[in-house]
């Protein structure tokens, strides 16, 4: 350590007492209940829990796709709506959701067109992001000509095309088989290392959460709340084999304990 330590930078994403209650015909549903969380720049944070624990809802509140009914959420120090208008983040959904009437390149170009980038700039960015996800050569193909894994990679490229420091991913690999999933997990980590973005990642696979993250947020349902926040001490450079090491298994065990404590296995 040389010299005094730098003052801690403001967190990129912050939630204080965040609450979201839905009014349904069968009574109120507490999707989120008093959620407190900070995510700093450059972190890779996984949200894990069973269905109904609020992990997707939390991500959507951060993305201003849902409105909280209580508490505060801040993204880059602004309200989620202001952050969305400032195009502060890229969002990757569970399904690739590519437009079948556009080529892969056209799909990656979509957000750039909407945000008004210059033509030359757009072409450069499309080439760069397709290279990042290893889809160079598929620019002129249509989505239905690609496999599920490749479509999801294109979806990630689309989220990386414009300058946003934050990447929010809602179970992006859930529909894919395990082998493809392993490849994509590796690719995602390499991407994260190269781009240094802050990533929020929702999953319900314990190994995936432990493998990818620097911080694991364990949630449980009824009401949706955070049970445990686990700081991962695994090295940043992780080959797939790390999943058999004792440190990894210890973290996975801690996650499982958290899920049990939240009655996720009931």
């Amino acid at each position: 350590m040389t010299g005094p330590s730098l003052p801690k930078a403001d967190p990129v994403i912050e939630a204080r007492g965040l609450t979201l209650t839905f009014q349904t015909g069968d009574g109120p549903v507490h999707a989120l209940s008093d959620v407190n969380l900070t995510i700093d720049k450059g972190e890779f944070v996984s949200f894990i829990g069973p269905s109904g624990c609020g992990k997707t809802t939390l991500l959507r509140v951060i993305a201003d796709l849902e409105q909280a009914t209580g508490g505060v959420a801040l993204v880059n120090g602004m309200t989620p709506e202001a952050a969305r208008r400032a195009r502060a983040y890229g969002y990757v959904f569970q399904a690739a959701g590519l437009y079948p009437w556009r080529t892969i390149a056209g799909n990656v170009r979509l957000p750039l067109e909407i945000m008004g980038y210059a033509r030359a700039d757009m072409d450069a960015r499309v080439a760069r992001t397709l290279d990042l996800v290893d889809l160079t050569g598929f620019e002129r193909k249509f989505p239905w000509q690609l496999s599920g894994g490749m479509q999801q990679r294109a979806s990630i490229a689309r989220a990386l095309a414009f300058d946003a420091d934050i990447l929010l991913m809602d179970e992006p690999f859930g529909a894919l088989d395990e082998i493809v999933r392993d490849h994509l997990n590796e690719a995602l980590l390499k991407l994260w290392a190269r781009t240094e973005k802050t990533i929020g990642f929702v999953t319900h696979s314990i190994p995936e959460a432990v493998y990818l993250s620097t911080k694991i947020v364990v949630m449980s349902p009824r009401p949706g709340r955070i049970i445990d926040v686990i700081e991962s001490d695994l090295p940043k450079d992780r080959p797939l084999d790390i999943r058999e090491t004792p440190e990894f298994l210890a973290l996975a065990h801690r996650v499982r304990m958290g899920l049990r404590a939240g009655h996720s296995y009931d």
Partner: protein
Amino acid sequence: MIARARAGAGARPLALGLLALLLAGLALGDARGGFGLSGWLWTLGAWGCAWGCVAGLAALNPRGALLHRAQRVGAAVIFGATLLFLWQAITVGAQVPTVLLPPPSMIAERFAGSLPILWADFVQTFVRAALFGYVVGCGAAVLAALAIDRSPFLQAGLLPVGNLVAALPIIGIAPIMVMWFGFDWHSKAAVVIVMVFFPMLVNTLEGLKAAERMQIDLMRTYAADYRQTLLKLRLPAAAPFLFNGLKICSTLALIGAIVAEFFGTPTVGMGFRISTEVGRMNVDMVWAEITVAALAGSAFYGLISVAERLLTFWHPSQRR
């Protein structure tokens, strides 16, 4: 080895087809004086061979998109030709009175001899009334749908009403339109406009709902405004529904224009020609007009289908 087997499979329908042609020729030759027993035998034989030819053709398994296309087109053409042949043979051979049903040869003769009249009728009914009404009606429906789209209240109110009106016999307003707009093609165009408006409106509204929730959320994350979301997502996603409506309306437009003319029209127009020639029992002229209508209608529908294939190439129904 495989090539020879494939050629063998194709030989049977080919042989049957040639046999059918031979028998058909014999039948038509015999028909001229009225059928005897042999005439009926040739006719039935030709029909049977033609059907066998189609069945054999359908059983083939051609490789490649082009051959596949040829197979389907071939089967349809042979079937159509068989119908035409049966029509000709039976009307001439059984000496069916021409007022009841004229043979195709007579219709073709009348057709060739009346081209100027047929053309004038075609322009009056199809080009002026049907086409104009179609463009204005469908255009208005799309604009109305876009306007209604911004108000969920209007949508909830108009969709059921629109569905009901689309089922009504709109053709009934023809006399009223003649009263308001006069005898000429304008009143017919007005009928067409009303006829195509509601089905097109209903289809467009359905189409505007077609974009998935997830896609709309994605647009929200890009902070895209209403216009961008409409142009880049919702309109392309609505295209299959729009074309469904356009195809339905194409047949409605022509029928509407022709039938509207039954209620009063100047001395030109397909509907006019049909109703007067029916009165004079000139059935062959009527059938000539019908041929024009069928050709125009098929061409119109075909054009829209081609446009559909070009613009909605990505839809699962277009990707065989």
